[in-house]
């Protein structure tokens, strides 16, 4: 692959090797005046993930421009590692993968689509009929198929001897999904970089933080400040109901609901207050754990809420109680946001039924 192509798809392993082979050092990229344009494009990438139109596609005509585009990617990851925000990471994964879709869709050469798809973990095989672009083993198809759309259900695919036939547009969509999943995992695991990143972006980092906070505020506003149990997904209702009934909820369940409440804007004190609605709740015993999970103590890691897939693996998801919203999301927080939109505005006075009864009724 030539550098122009690598610049368009900087996340394929070949791109990483190119950067290494060229001898570029991250330290230089951050500090050297020669890489000013790289740094600017990196900031643009991160900023773009919080904008409605996403990351702007730039055409790199010369080799030099291609190198800027290519190098801006690892620098953008450094920025994300420094900002260390799960919400931002999520948005970034979406934005980069949408940019990928745009670029792949406009590729003239089918072989590029093949190469990028395979490099991102979509192991395509040659089509067995004239109509399709490629085939994919159904287990790989299942891993990357977008969840919400019925036309993506396995039952509606052309499945033969374990292989699903796909047209080019579908291959591109799967590749987009594969990149999104990969970025979410990878970026979340990036270690906090040293001071050089903060020093290299003295203006930009605070600016990004402000934009992020504004975004967050809009997100938090969705929850109207007050957490509404009626909008809880079935898993959280079940956990909450169990806690109130003093049923022994497994650790993962307790962990999940604490991170859930925290992501909805509650700090550790608010979470404790929420839990103390439960009669005989032992605040002191739980304070340590809750403060740890919310990052108040012990290293500051704010844990993210497990997604639906994890909840199912651990047996926390009450499979039979899933509703249509459940099938349109892959994360409990998204269930809450979606459900919240359909509820009438919160009444100012507290509900007549105690929360335990409400959750039990609703769950």
């Amino acid at each position: 692959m030539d550098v122009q192509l690598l610049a368009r798809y900087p996340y394929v392993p070949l791109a990483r090797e190119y950067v290494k082979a060229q001898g570029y050092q991250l330290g230089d990229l951050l500090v050297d005046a020669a890489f000013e344009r790289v740094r600017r494009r990196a900031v643009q990438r991160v900023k773009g993930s919080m904008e409605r139109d996403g990351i702007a596609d730039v055409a790199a005509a010369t080799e030099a421009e291609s190198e800027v585009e290519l190098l801006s990617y690892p620098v953008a990851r450094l920025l994300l590692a420094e900002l260390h925000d799960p919400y931002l990471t999520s948005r970034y994964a979406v934005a980069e993968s949408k940019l990928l879709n745009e670029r792949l869709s406009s590729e003239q050469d089918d072989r590029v689509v093949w190469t990028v798809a395979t490099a991102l973990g979509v192991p395509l095989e040659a089509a067995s009929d004239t109509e399709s672009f490629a085939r994919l083993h159904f287990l790989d198809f299942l891993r990357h198929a977008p969840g919400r759309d019925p036309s993506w259900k396995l039952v509606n695919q052309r499945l033969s001897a374990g292989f699903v036939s796909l047209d080019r547009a579908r291959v591109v969509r799967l590749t987009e999904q594969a990149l999104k999943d990969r970025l979410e995992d990878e970026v979340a695991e990036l270690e906090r970089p040293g001071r050089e990143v903060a020093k290299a972006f003295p203006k930009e980092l605070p600016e990004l933080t402000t934009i992020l906070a504004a975004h967050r505020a809009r997100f938090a506003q969705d929850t109207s400040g007050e957490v509404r149990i009626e909008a809880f997904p079935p898993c959280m209702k079940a956990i909450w109901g169990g806690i109130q009934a003093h049923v022994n909820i497994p650790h993962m369940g307790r962990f999940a609901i604490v991170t859930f409440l925290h992501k909805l804007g509650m700090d550790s004190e608010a979470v404790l207050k929420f839990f103390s609605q439960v009669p005989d709740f032992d605040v002191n015993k739980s304070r340590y754990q809750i403060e740890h999970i919310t990052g108040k103590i012990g290293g500051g890691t704010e844990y993210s809420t497990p997604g639906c897939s994890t909840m199912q693996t651990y047996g926390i998801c009450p499979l039979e109680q899933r509703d249509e919203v459940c099938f349109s999301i892959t994360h409990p927080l998204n269930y809450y946001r979606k459900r919240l939109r359909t509820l009438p505005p919160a009444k100012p006075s507290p509900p007549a039924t105690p929360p335990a009864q409400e959750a039990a009724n609703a769950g």
Partner: protein
Amino acid sequence: MQDELRPQDVWLSERFADYYRRNPTPMPAVVERFREREFGFLFHGQKFFLRHVGMPTPRELRQFMIQRAPAHAYYSTAFYQDPNAKTMVEKGWRGAELIFDLDADHVPGAEKLGYRAQLEKVKDHFLRLVEDFVMRDFGFAEKDLLLTFSGGRGYHCHVLHGRALGLNSAERREIVDFVTGTGLQLNAFIRPMTLRTKGFGRFQKADNTVVIPADDEPGWGGRINEAIRLHLAALKALPAEKKDDVLRMNFNGITKARLLTLQKDLDHLDEDRIRGVRFPDGTRRGIVDVGVEIYKYMERTLTFDTLVPLAKGETDEPVTSDVKRLIRLPGSLHGKSGLRVVTLDLDDIRGFDPLADAVAFGTEPIRIRVEKPANVDVAGFQADLPVGEATVPEAAAVMLMCRGAAVPI
């Protein structure tokens, strides 16, 4: 803690223990990665379910079976780092077999049948599940599968292929939805196409024709072709007035002239053409020459009325989508029938008769008191037993006591 054991519980436990003693067949041999499995047991006359039992070696399991003689024995489809742990988090899930469980409960029409007939019917459906769906559509080879008779009223298909082990619950759900036809969208497979027109010159109008998957299309395509052929044949076979009623019911204001045209369309349907025709681009597709109203009628009714019940496979949805199920241990006995959980090759299944081939006990005459009138048919012994004393072969005695219909004397 233990409930009081009734005479039949003691008797059955002794017989079961004896069976396990006499049968050194290494049942655990079929269970791969033995040490990572959780085992579960139920006991005759006891309500509690013993779980979270890890077995370090097959020998421990054998000894347990002989000593405790469980009524029912299960093992986890999942692999765990620590099967003895009590919570999922502590157990450490390491993947799970993909499971299809077909029981008489899932097969429509089976409820009305006697036990022997039920077993036959379930077997037919199970073969279809394994051959058409698991092997042909999903592409698994026989060597990737473990097929068993459950000892009760059904069969299990375990997929052991390495790639299937890591599937999460949502992915397994997609797989079972494929088998049951859940979420099938007809317009993903068929579409109206203007292949012909009616009228002349400036009065010429397009009259729709429906292009459908050919009869040999893989996956649901071929099934849809078959269902459409059957559906149209059924519609065609209705007497003329009934046909009109159906069409009028579905389309307001349909004219008599149009009804006649549609009737003619139905009469002239060519089955071969519906099965498949070679197109200029080399593809083979089915052509259904019917007016747009019949197409819409098919779209509306096909999935719910005809297609899915005719073509779909049956299987237990919660079992497949569960990533941590406990399932019958091959080689163990089923506590409600006394029959064995038997591992089978695909070829063996066709000729398999559970009531002869899954029998674990012999012909020794046993005196019993029948407490509920019962029909028993096992190991070649058949009888309708009224309440009262009787002498029956051991296998029959076991079955009757397992069912709760008799007690030992």
